[in-house]
């Protein structure tokens, strides 16, 4: 290979010759890790069944480390392509979903239930568009904001705050806008004869869920093709057709549109004499152009797959379908939904648990949050102390913090006014978009396509479209800012 990448030099002044423990950043990292270990042991001593919750904590920690290691930001996958023409993150995601899908297929062959296919409909594209528009202004997607918070970025913490409350308010509120929904949704929602306390016909989101979403169908590729052989269904239909084939095609398209020209220039190759071999090494150069990102993609794919497997084993062991049953057994009934369930996806997910945090705070402040389907019937409003997926999000923050400290990349960053406003408004859009599309870039895309549900590609499509419009607007904003000041062009 030619010598095309520059040199990395570490000029941090901390005394490298002093012992590992004497360096303060290492000490902080070790302290965080130790607190998580102590907390885990303490929880297990109280009741061994907390292991179910701790699985989320430790997988969250691993996700956080990989996200930080590869600066694995899905917002930049969309944004960097349009804004600056860099396919680094898009390639990393394709690696991640391919590996995830292979392991998820193995888990399915092993007889475990993985994910429920998402209902297929227009809401995915519309919600994803709003979400994709929002992430340009917040500077990070749902998972990206978590790991950036772990790096000490307080602007990203504001994004999480905004996502939490915007979702909680969005799914629970009702008012004049209830009248905007089609009458057919209201009729369909009324016909479902849901329990009175949910007041299903009040509240935009309730009518949307009961009158629209529940009438839609979703299916994995194996279901659609009606394959019965579990090996063929999982590996060929779900993994290969839905994930690996489209991901490979996307990698080729990225190479042709974003990487080939520069690669030929650097290698001094003429297109007319380029052979298949040259193109293949070009694709390899693109995949390895950011090794950290590629490694993170591998790690996230493998761990996300293992997560599904471990949760499946635990559910089998305890004979449960949902963590709510375990919580009820342990005497924690207050946060459960009317079906005694809580949000418990069993795989990598981001946004719903954040909505529960927001709802819990609002409930403490005296706002009724249970008269809706989202919290009241399905996900519950558990206290953050017993919210298992919530601990996965906290785990991501802590995992990222540990690695950032060890790599001397941790830094408290206070947002400027402009960044703070973008974070709050963008986070609000992300929250609303994620609820309409029934998930974020992880729950509705990464975990969805990897488990053989093609609806995730619709989410990506919407997110890319929203990101495209967002980048155009952001560039206009920069130009306007530039015109305001002479000394500062941007």
């Amino acid at each position, binding site marked *: 290979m030619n010598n095309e990448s*520059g040199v*990395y030099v570490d000029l*941090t*002044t901390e005394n490298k010759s002093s012992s590992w423990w004497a360096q303060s950043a290492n000490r902080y990292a070790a302290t965080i890790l130790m607190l998580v270990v102590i907390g885990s042991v303490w929880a297990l001593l109280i009741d061994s069944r907390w292991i179910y919750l701790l699985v989320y904590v430790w997988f969250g920690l691993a996700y956080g480390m990989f996200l930080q290691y590869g600066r694995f930001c899905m917002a930049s996958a969309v944004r960097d392509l349009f804004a*600056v023409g*860099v396919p680094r993150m898009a390639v990393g995601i394709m690696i991640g979903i391919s590996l995830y899908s292979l392991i998820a297929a193995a888990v399915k062959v092993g007889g475990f239930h993985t994910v429920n296919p998402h209902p297929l409909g227009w809401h995915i594209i519309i919600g994803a568009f709003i979400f994709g528009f929002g992430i340009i202004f917040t500077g990070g997607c749902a998972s990206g904001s978590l790991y950036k918070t772990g790096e000490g970025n307080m602007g990203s913490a504001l994004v999480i705050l905004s996502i939490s409350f915007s979702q909680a308010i969005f799914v629970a509120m009702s008012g004049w806008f209830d009248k905007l929904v089609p009458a057919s949704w209201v009729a369909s929602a009324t016909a479902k004869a849901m329990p009175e306390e949910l007041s299903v016909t009040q509240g935009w989101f309730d009518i949307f869920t009961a009158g629209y979403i529940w009438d839609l169908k979703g299916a994995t590729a194996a279901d659609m093709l009606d394959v019965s052989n579990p090996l063929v269904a999982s590996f060929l239909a779900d993994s290969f057709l839905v994930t690996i084939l489209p991901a490979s095609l996307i990698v080729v398209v990225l190479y042709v549109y974003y990487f080939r020209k520069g690669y030929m*220039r650097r290698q001094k190759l003429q297109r007319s004499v380029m052979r298949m071999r040259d193109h293949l090494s070009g694709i390899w150069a693109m995949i390895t*152009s950011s090794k950290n990102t590629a490694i993170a993609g591998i790690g996230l794919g493998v761990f996300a797959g293992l997560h599904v497997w471990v949760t499946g084993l635990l559910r089998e062991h305890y004979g449960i379908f949902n963590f709510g049953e375990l919580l009820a057994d342990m005497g924690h009934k207050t946060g459960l939904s009317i079906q005694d369930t809580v949000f418990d996806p069993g795989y990598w997910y981001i946004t719903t648990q954040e909505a529960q945090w927001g709802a819990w705070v609002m409930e403490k402040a005296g706002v009724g949050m249970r008269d809706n389907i989202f919290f009241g019937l399905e996900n519950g409003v558990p206290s953050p102390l017993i919210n298992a997926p919530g601990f996965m999000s906290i785990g991501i923050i802590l995992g990222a913090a540990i690695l950032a400290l060890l790599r001397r990349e941790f830094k408290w960053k206070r947002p400027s006014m402009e960044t703070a406003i973008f974070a709050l408004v963008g986070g609000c859009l992300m929250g609303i978009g994620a609820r309409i599309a029934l998930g974020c870039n992880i729950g509705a895309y990464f975990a969805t396509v990897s488990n053989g549900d093609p609806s995730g590609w619709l989410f990506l499509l919407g997110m890319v479209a929203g990101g495209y419009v967002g980048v155009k607007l952001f560039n206009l904003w920069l130009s306007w800012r530039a015109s305001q000041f002479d000394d500062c062009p941007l």
Partner: protein
Amino acid sequence: MKQLVALWRKWLQRRHEVIVDRKRRPVELPWGEVVQVSHTADCMGAACPRPQLITMRMLEDMQKGDVLELVSDNPTTVETIPALAMVLSSRHLATLHTDSGWRIYLRKEE
């Protein structure tokens, strides 16, 4: 309304997201090579995608052989810049990790 606009302007002026300096100055890289930096963009505190977009704008503004110094404390930006250099007909010279963040040097090649 006028007051509100004035307040808004003051608010924006209170802190620049990015400070750009077009003074030419020599910078010695750690291995002893001295490069002539023509543009410096201080993006301390700025989050993605701002530093990347600014790098693009700066490179457009530069002549062949000019060197850009980008100062950033945003790890994601640091990861993206070498890949960005590849598509922007420029060469990534060095990334220096300092206590406060990173200094990245790019030379425009075409």
